[in-house]
């Protein structure tokens, strides 16, 4: 079955991203497909490569990046939400005249249409939020 996932909160402050990660891992291990993980609202903050969590704690961004590489996951950050929160890739850096970018490997920035498309294409959409 094709399953899409929506993550609405950033790392650490809320459990949403952790729950989504555990759910995605279990989905893949159960032999299903995760067609997309869409990060909306503060969820886009999962995609910064600039975090340095305590060494004895999990590294939320790295876990996503590694899982994406291993399982060829599509991790999409909503562009409008990124602009409100300060998530920037090369393209956004140029477009909005910023002097730095902070996106992590394995994530891409795209439009909200990708969420709708995920809802159409997937058999189920599961939301994790606050």
């Amino acid at each position, binding site marked *: 079955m094709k399953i899409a996932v*929506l993550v*609405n909160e950033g790392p650490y402050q809320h459990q949403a991203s952790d729950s989504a990660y555990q759910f995605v891992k279990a989905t893949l291990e159960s032999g299903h497909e995760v067609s997309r993980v869409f990060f*909306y*609202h503060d969820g886009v903050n999962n995609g910064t490569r600039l975090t340095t969590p305590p060494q004895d704690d999990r590294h939320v961004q790295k876990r996503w990046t590694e899982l994406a590489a291993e399982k060829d996951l599509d991790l999409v950050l909503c*562009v*409008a*939400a990124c602009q*409100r929160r300060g998530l920037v890739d090369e*393209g956004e850096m140029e477009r909005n005249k910023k002097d730095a970018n902070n996106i992590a490997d394995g994530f891409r*920035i*795209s*439009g*909200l*249409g*990708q*969420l*709708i*498309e995920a*809802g*159409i*294409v997937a058999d189920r*959409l599961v*939301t994790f*939020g606050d």
Partner: protein
Amino acid sequence: MEEEYAGDVVKRFLYVNRRMPHGTVYALESLETVLIGAAFDQDVTMLFIDDGVYQIKKDQQPESLEFKNFSKTYRALEMYDVEKLFVEQESLSERGLSKDDLLVDVEIISREAVVDLMEKQDVVLSF
């Protein structure tokens, strides 16, 4: 970047709005999702229950907080072919509100009808 979906699947999308506007961004970013989603020609329904009914209350002046006033956009939904707007009667009553307090034309339905409506959907988005 944005590849428009060009398939011919039509799914029933329900947007459930349950939160007050302005205290959090969810109402605004939910509305933005509906507007973008309109381009995909799906079967869209918007439902306002619990504190979500405040999203379409008349006379909102978020300019008092330097916020932009997106409440008028609910009136423009018709132009996007988003025409099925439902509000739960019980949610209005608990809050001392009636149809006259709402800024857009909606259909007011009972809680029982809300239950039925939810069970008819393919995708439920509730932020």
